[in-house]
């Protein structure tokens, strides 16, 4: 057991931190959000240059073979700076699904394009009725010779509006909530029958409603077993949750820092408000929540690679519970201790609060994962 970064990991961290410090101040971030796609193409190129877009992929596919610790390092920095680019959608989700589920040919075709920054992906999975249950898929995929015809609607497709291709789950067999019978399809975003409506999300990012009307997907764009994609979807979702946990930690860490700075400088009643013991203790409680969350983000990174899917899922659920609860507490208190300015769009802390709030609603909130964990027998069952 070793909690130190390796030399290479430290270099990665330093370069990402430097990029963020140089180019991702809060004012810049707000400017990037106003660009046509809601994020910065320039930064996307910078990520490609730094190798961030190639990080998790094998060297054979133009990648660097990075693992969850590397991803954690990047995501924490992204969380601190509230980055807007479709890293999660393209690299973690889209790239992850291809890497974990794709054929050698598919990987060889697409992963280098991701790494170079030329291909942006999205993951179309959530449906109106699915809530957080990954196995709930109503979108249909009908076999038509070697092809499939997709019909259905996918909601809250993260960065679905600027994606070149969308990985879509659809049901080849079985009924709405069966674990078997789910396929994963790579759909060109401009293919006939695909319509998208992009919109801003509460946290200043982008998502889309994607409608599929008789969309034809040929056999080369079926990812893995067309009736057995769920395990891959679950695995990649777990990896994404681990990444989001790290992002949330970055955001919480930044909120605590901003809050402590504010308390030390803001004066009221002829003293800095940081001299009030109640506000000091509240800050200590934020610190505890942050560090407990950080511990679980590390646990998630470790367990995202666990071979036994049941153990992996329980561990990831546990981490999501902790991240959700820590994030809520740290976020609410950061706003509370800032008073009015914490409520304004002009100040960073409110945006961080919104981001951690939305991270809780991604891939299942704390209560959902607590239920799942409890139903699976808890963390300590033998």
């Amino acid at each position, binding site marked *: 057991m070793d909690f130190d970064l390796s030399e290479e990991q430290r270099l990665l961290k330093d370069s990402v931190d430097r990029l963020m410090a140089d180019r991702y101040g809060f004012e810049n971030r707000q400017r990037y959000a106003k660009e046509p796609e809601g994020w910065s193409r320039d930064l996307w190129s910078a990520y490609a240059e730094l190798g961030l877009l190639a990080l998790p992929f094998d060297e054979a596919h133009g990648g660097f073979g990075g693992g969850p610790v590397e991803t954690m390092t990047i995501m924490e920095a992204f969380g601190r700076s509230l980055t807007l680019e479709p890293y999660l959608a393209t690299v973690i989700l889209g790239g992850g699904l291809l890497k974990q589920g794709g054929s050698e040919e598919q990987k060889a075709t697409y992963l280098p394009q991701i790494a170079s920054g030329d291909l942006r992906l999205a993951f179309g999975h959530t449906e*109106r009725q699915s809530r957080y249950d990954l196995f709930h898929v109503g979108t249909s995929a009908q076999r038509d010779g070697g092809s499939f015809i997709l019909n259905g609607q996918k909601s809250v497709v993260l960065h679905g509006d600027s994606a070149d291709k969308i990985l879509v789950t659809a049901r080849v067999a079985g009924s709405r909530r069966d674990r078997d019978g789910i396929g994963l399809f790579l759909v060109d975003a401009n293919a006939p029958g695909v319509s998208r409506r992009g919109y801003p999300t*509460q946290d200043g990012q982008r998502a889309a409603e994607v409608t599929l009307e008789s969309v034809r997907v040929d056999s080369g764009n079926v990812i893995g077993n067309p009736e057995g994609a769920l395990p891959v979807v679950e695995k990649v979702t777990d990896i994404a949750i681990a990444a989001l946990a790290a992002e949330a930690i970055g955001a919480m860490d930044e909120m605590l820092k901003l809050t402590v700075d504010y308390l030390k400088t803001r004066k009221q009643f002829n003293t800095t408000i940081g001299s*009030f013991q*109640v506000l000091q203790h509240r800050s200590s409680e934020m610190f505890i929540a942050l560090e407990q969350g950080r511990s679980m983000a590390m646990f998630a990174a470790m367990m995202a690679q666990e071979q036994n899917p049941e153990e992996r899922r329980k561990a990831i659920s546990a981490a999501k519970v902790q991240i959700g609860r820590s994030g809520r507490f740290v976020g609410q208190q950061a706003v509370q201790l800032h008073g*009015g300015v*914490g*409520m*304004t*769009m002009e100040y960073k802390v409110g945006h961080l609060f919104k981001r951690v*709030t939305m991270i809780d609603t991604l891939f299942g909130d704390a209560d959902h994962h607590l239920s799942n964990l409890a139903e699976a027998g808890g963390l300590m069952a033998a």
Partner: protein
Amino acid sequence: MDLRFTDEELAFRDEVREFFRTALPDSIRRKMIEGHHPSKDDLVTWSRILNTKGWAVPHWPVEWGGTGWSPVKQYIFRDELQQAPAPEPLAFGVSMVGPVIYTFGNEDQKRRFLPRIANLDDWWCQGFSEPGAGSDLASLKTTAKRDGEYYIVNGQKTWTTLAQHADWIFCLVRTDSTVKKQEGISFLLIDMKTSGITVRPIQTIDGGHEVNEVFFDDVRVPVENLVGQENKGWDYAKFLLGNERVGIARIGISKARLKRVRELASLERIGDVPLIDIPRFREKLAAVEVELKALEMTQLRVVAAESRREKGKPDPASSILKIKGSEIQQATTELLMEVVGPFAMPYHPEEEGRNEPTDGPDWASTAAPTYFNWRKISIYGGSNEIQKNIIAKAILGF
């Protein structure tokens, strides 16, 4: 001791409930249920319906339009109004400056302002908070210098709610800076159309525009707009803030919100099971209902004791109403977030209206903005931390 409503009180409740059921325009009711902000027009329309009925300012003296209702009836009226759910009459007029004017103002001021407040002919806003002051309200810096028959006002107010619609602003201004900070403050009424006033919007994290900064640059205010005595403004402000705390529990609003949560959680399903039938969720909801019922009883205890209390001296126990009231209101927004689930994510700016197709269920779009916006409730009106100081000092004697 008899903790039940009397038959007369029950009859009164039925009467106001029926009135709200029939008199409140449906379009306004829909907005309220769905968590949208009523527009200025909505509020004017509704206030005039109430005023026509004689119920716009029930707590005022009868000669100025009040109803003479007992504190319990006042409570019932407000509770039913919130549960309707109907917009509350603009507090800055009817609950804040109105009572200050009829208590401390002169006859001219009463005649000039009170009827227009009751009918929402004048939209009022509140000029108390300043950028540097926060919870230390009395440290305000906006000055008013006497110049013949005018005060010349310079300075800045902030967190001025709905100032963008306002005809008038009531301000605390410093008229003497040589004395203790509380002793040099005056209470001025200022016409928003006076030259030298600039309103700058503040966008809040929910994306809305409720609050503003208001700048005063050599603004000339006739001395006749001074309320009461010069340099006594702090007393009037304390009186005003005491009144503010009474309604702050907003129990009817939480009741309406919990009813909404229960309805939506019956529609929303996890597989085939309505969310409301998931034990975890329904117990969480019930736990908030218990807290709310306790708070309602606490509120009624405060109301019942009101007649025995010195006028204008707020019951320090009303700090409980602020603390628990805000905690419960915030808890209801968290429940709604849970109901909405993944569909909390899409953001629809309120201004754009509801013309475009919705992303997710059409009731989902206000969940997150309401959750974000309602974080303010534990901050404004004396933060919950300040309220705990008040309990510690005024009740527990620390």
